[in-house]
């Protein structure tokens, strides 16, 4: 009997085997049993499908069985190829089955897609419209951005197919193409307008989908369609379409809803457009009020539209009535929609909520999870300073009950947003944040933690120091309490460490020793989390620095000592470095520490002289003494300079924040034609956009010194180009090439000559501790790679430093002589910087330099700072670093000129224009030479470009503008 029933239901003659399989699966009692059967079936199919000459009908059934297996959640990838093959069949049934199976199995990124494109092309040309339809359906799922061009023309032609079914599917396919890759089909977009006038309503409705998508992207070009949409909506609402489009007696409701959505987009903040819509919207609201679900769907969409467009009081009143009917309804669905609608109306006029207070509270108390969450969303929109405490309490209460990670994270984000915007008191704010962190743990977005740190650091934005201080000490108190808790989320720990480090001792309530001890304790307890430990070490460093700077002894207890000693041997290089830095810091004098880590300065900007101009003298001196000029890596490896340029220009993007080389690149290389073109006319730097930009444009007002400078050095005056490096140094982690020589560090070292090796190093961790946005884009691996490479370079070429400029780059000899000229004119400096090729310093071991400063390193390093003091005038120097009279005198001319431009050169606008744009230049990027120059003075990284700077400076040109290098290189 059952068998008879089954065979009666089976349409396309499935075999007994398949029926049995389905029946067995249906009768399974457990998942394990089902899996067993399915695995058996997979084995069977594997065998059967691999047989030669399987009859077509059989194969069709196998493919359907494969679909069944995959639907049950098993991997059927072995049979995908058979499904693809089946699309080649001539019979419609087989073809349709093939297309069905492939579009169920494959995503548009699958490798097999390429095999199906040809079949689709053939089928789109078929004269059987059903075949064309099958192909169009498959196109929607299977064609990806790369294969769109292969079928695009055919699909576009099908827009004129005599069958409305085909036209409609072609429109939908075009819509899908637009979603995939807007640029490939942009020229066909006007077609959607034409299709809107199609005589068949179903084709018109398909066009609405595409138009909706286009209007979401940009409404402006479609404003002139408002009248058409309004008239279509009017006709639909008046029941002008054929009866077949009715749905439960409502005229074409889905078309109405689509039109309402489009009108909502077109009427936003557009009074004229909105006024055209008012009457039809009123009509729609009146006519849809039938009480049927579909009528309510239209009503809801109507309210959404009315709330989105330029407001009309009468319509809003009407919407409010409908909303209140929704809210009072027994149906949960309607109440849900009502809450949503209320949220939209309340945005325009908050008074509408008043009468629904009770209904809203009812929904909030409802056991229905969905309704409750929707209501919380409404409350979130309605939050004001007056009700924030209640609402946040509700939300936190709800958070306790939620288990699913995603929604917990979302709600946590909302609570944090509300707390930041409306917090009534500081205490409440800190406590709320603690609660959120405790409940949501690591689900909170890192940004929230950084925002919290920033808020504590910057205060509430008003010039109210007292309340800021109170906020900080409250935070410190509550965090010290929190540390008692057994387990805290990592993110909160980071915040705690940072706050304790910055403000732990600020109000004087807690002794430095107590803070340091609890930080040590914390780092011990969470020993598996290196990030937290890193934060802790940095915090300890800060507390110590503040103590030392204030003239008190550093609170280094024996535990701290042993903790640090342990860290120095940590497997994490990051922790190691922090520990070494801290130890180095403890050995420094009061002034140096104070300027390296000034108290409560986390919000100050750090100025970085990216062109490393202060190293010019040092480099020049080293060169005169016989050091080799810097040779670009590719030249060293024997590659043509063009490739080198290409790699340099390579990483393109709107905000290239990556150092130009010494890191792995994952993007594809550009076509080599661009750099090649550059090679031939050297005075015509027409590079592709990429990293390069007109320096003048980038620099803005700061560039005002440029014309003068370039006028002197250059006749041609080609548009100046430079690597965009703004933001490069703003990476955290170990001091990388560019991060080391911050100008504050430079001025520090000018005042105390023992500091230089440690100053740049210690400036890096301070940066990293900032809660500024760039903290998040850390790439800890990168510096290591480049250090490795530097090391390699040092071991390969560093030994040759003593043998004078032999085998340098093409342009090497010329700059060398020029440098000598420049050096000749300078008094005093060359003698100091003997080209002592430092013995190979372990580059990874940053601490060793500062612990036992070698006699050679500081001396050459100190001098350039003095000479080039003028380069860094624009930075607000730390208070303790008054330039010594001698320095001031030496740098006098530059100083004066620079001060003229000090106004425009606002903090942060220092842009390092590195003269890497000359293809002939052997020095592709000055940035490559960072720490080598700053730290251990390896003469092989000496750059002729810097020598140019020397020369320029000698000639009296303001070296404020690094472009000068470029000009002089010609």
């Amino acid at each position: 009997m059952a068998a008879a029933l089954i065979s009666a239901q089976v349409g396309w003659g499935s075999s007994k085997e398949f029926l049995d399989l389905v029946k067995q699966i249906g009768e399974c009692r457990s998942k394990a049993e089902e899996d067993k059967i399915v695995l058996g079936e997979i084995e069977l199919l594997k065998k059967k499908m691999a047989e030669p000459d399987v009859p077509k009908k059989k194969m069709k059934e196998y493919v359907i069985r494969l679909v069944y297996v995959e639907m049950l959640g098993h991997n059927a990838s072995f049979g995908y190829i058979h499904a693809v093959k089946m699309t080649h069949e001539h019979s419609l049934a087989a073809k349709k089955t093939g297309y069905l199976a492939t579009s169920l199995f494959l995503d548009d990124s699958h490798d097999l897609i390429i095999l199906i494109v040809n079949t689709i092309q053939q089928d789109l040309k078929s004269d059987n419209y059903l075949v064309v339809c099958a192909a169009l359906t498959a196109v929607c799922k299977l064609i990806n951005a790369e294969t769109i061009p292969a079928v695009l023309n055919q699909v576009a032609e099908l827009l004129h197919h005599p069958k409305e079914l085909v036209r409609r599917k072609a429109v939908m396919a075009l819509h899908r193409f637009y979603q995939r890759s807007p640029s490939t089909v942009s020229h066909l977009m006007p077609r959607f307008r034409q299709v809107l006038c199609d005589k068949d309503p179903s084709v018109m409705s398909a066009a609405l989908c595409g138009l909706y998508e286009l209007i979401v992207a940009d409404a402006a070009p479609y404003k002139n369609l408002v009248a058409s949409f309004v008239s279509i909506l009017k006709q639909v609402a008046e029941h002008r379409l054929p009866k077949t489009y009715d749905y439960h007696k409502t005229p074409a409701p889905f078309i109405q809803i689509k039109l309402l959505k489009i009108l909502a987009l077109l009427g936003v903040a557009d009074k004229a457009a909105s006024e055209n819509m008012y009457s039809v919207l009123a009509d729609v609201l009146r006519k849809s009020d039938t009480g049927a679900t579909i009528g309510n769907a239209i009503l809801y969409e109507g309210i959404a539209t009315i709330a989105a467009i330029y407001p009309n009081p009468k319509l809003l009143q009407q919407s409010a009535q409908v909303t209140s009917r929704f809210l009072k309804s027994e149906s949960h669905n309607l109440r849900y929609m009502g809450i949503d609608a209320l949220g939209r109306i309340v945005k325009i006029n908050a008074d509408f909520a008043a009468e629904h207070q009770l209904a809203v509270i009812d929904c909030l108390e409802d056991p229905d999870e969905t309704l409750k969450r929707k209501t919380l969303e409404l409350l979130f929109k309605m939050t004001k300073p007056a009700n924030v405490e209640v609402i946040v309490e509700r939300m936190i209460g709800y958070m306790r009950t939620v288990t699913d990670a995603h929604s917990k994270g979302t709600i946590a984000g909302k609570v944090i947003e509300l707390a930041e915007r409306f917090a009534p008191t500081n205490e409440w704010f800190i406590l709320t944040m603690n609660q959120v962190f405790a409940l949501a743990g690591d689900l909170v977005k890192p940004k929230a933690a950084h925002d919290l740190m920033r808020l504590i650091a910057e205060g509430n934005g008003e010039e109210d120091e007292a309340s800021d201080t109170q906020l900080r000490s409250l935070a410190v108190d509550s965090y010290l309490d929190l540390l008692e808790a057994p387990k805290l989320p990592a993110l909160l720990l980071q915040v705690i460490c940072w706050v304790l480090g910055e403000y732990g001792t600020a109000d004087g309530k807690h002794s430095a020793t107590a803070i340091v001890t609890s930080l040590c304790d914390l780092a011990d307890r969470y020993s598996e989390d290196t990030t937290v430990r890193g934060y802790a070490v940095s915090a300890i460093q800060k507390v110590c620095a503040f103590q030392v700077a204030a003239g008190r002894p550093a609170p280094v207890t024996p535990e701290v000592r042993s903790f640090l000693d342990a860290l120095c041997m940590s497997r994490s290089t990051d922790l190691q470095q922090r520990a070494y830095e801290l130890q180095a810091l403890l050995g420094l004098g009061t002034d140096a520490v104070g300027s390296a880590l000034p108290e409560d300065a986390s919000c100050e900007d750090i100025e970085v002289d990216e062109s490393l101009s202060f190293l010019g003298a040092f480099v020049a001196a080293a060169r005169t003494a016989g050091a080799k000029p810097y040779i670009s890596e590719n030249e060293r490896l024997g590659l043509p300079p063009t490739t080198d340029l290409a790699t340099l220009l390579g990483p393109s993007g709107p905000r290239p924040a990556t150092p130009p080389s010494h890191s792995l690149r994952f993007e594809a290389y550009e076509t080599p034609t661009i750099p090649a073109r550059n090679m031939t006319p050297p005075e015509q730097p027409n590079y592709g956009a990429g990293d390069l930009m007109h320096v003048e444009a980038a620099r803005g007002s700061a560039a005002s010194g440029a014309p003068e400078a370039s006028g002197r050095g250059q006749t041609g005056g080609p548009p100046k180009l430079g690597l965009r490096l703004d933001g490069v140094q703003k990476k955290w982690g170990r001091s990388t090439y560019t991060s080391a020589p911050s100008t504050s560090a430079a001025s520090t070292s000018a005042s105390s000559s023992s500091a230089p090796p440690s100053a740049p190093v210690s400036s890096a961790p301070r940066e990293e501790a900032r809660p500024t946005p760039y903290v998040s884009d850390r790439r800890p691996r990168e510096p290591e790679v480049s250090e490795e490479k530097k090391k390699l370079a040092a071991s390969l070429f560093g030994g040759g430093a003593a043998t004078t400029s032999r085998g340098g780059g093409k342009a090497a000899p010329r700059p060398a002589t020029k440098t000598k000229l420049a050096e000749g004119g300078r008094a005093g400096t060359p003698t100091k910087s003997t080209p002592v090729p430092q013995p190979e310093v372990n580059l990874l071991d940053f601490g060793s330099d500062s612990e036992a400063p070698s006699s050679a390193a500081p001396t050459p390093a100190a001098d350039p700072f003095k000479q080039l003091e003028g380069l860094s005038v624009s930075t607000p120097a730390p208070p303790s670093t008054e330039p010594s009279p001698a320095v001031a005198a030496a740098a006098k001319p530059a100083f004066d000129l620079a001060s003229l431009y000090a106004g425009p050169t606002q903090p942060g606008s220092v842009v390092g224009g590195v003269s890497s744009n000359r293809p002939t230049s052997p020095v592709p990027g000055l940035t490559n030479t960072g720490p080598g120059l700053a730290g251990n003075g390896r003469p092989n990284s000496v750059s002729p470009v810097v020598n140019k700077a020397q020369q320029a400076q000698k000639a009296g040109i303001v070296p404020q503008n690094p472009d000068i290098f470029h000009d002089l290189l010609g």
Partner: protein
Amino acid sequence: MIQFVLLISRQGKVRLTKWYSPYTQKERAKAIREISSSVLSRGAKLCNIVEWKDKRVVYKRYASLYFCMCIDPSDNELATLETIHHFVEILDRYFGNVCELDLIFNFHKAYFILDEVLMAGELQESSKKSVARVIAAQDQLVESAKEQQGSISNIIKQATQG
């Protein structure tokens, strides 16, 4: 836009899945697990909407089958509910008083019908009649092809016998 369509039995067995956005095999399994557990456990009177990640799932129960559609937050939940009903009505018309068994044994036909109702995640035809007409045309073509095949093989058979 509709992200995917799921048909689940009351026991949590999957009867039909159609994905309109790319989801990996793993994500699919996870989505099915999560959605079926949250949908199946809901009471009859609660609303037919479940939040799932940053999307919504609208579901409706017909006898022992749950029809679920996952939509974007900007979509109209009530309209989606009616889209489900529209699909079910078409199935009903095609199979003649549709029941779960029809969909179990003829799931590929259910897919073909779904392809006529939804395309690229949008409702493509709101006229039941024209959907029915297309499906009928396809069936007819298949039938006639079959007959033809049958007659040809008959001829061959006769020829070989003769």
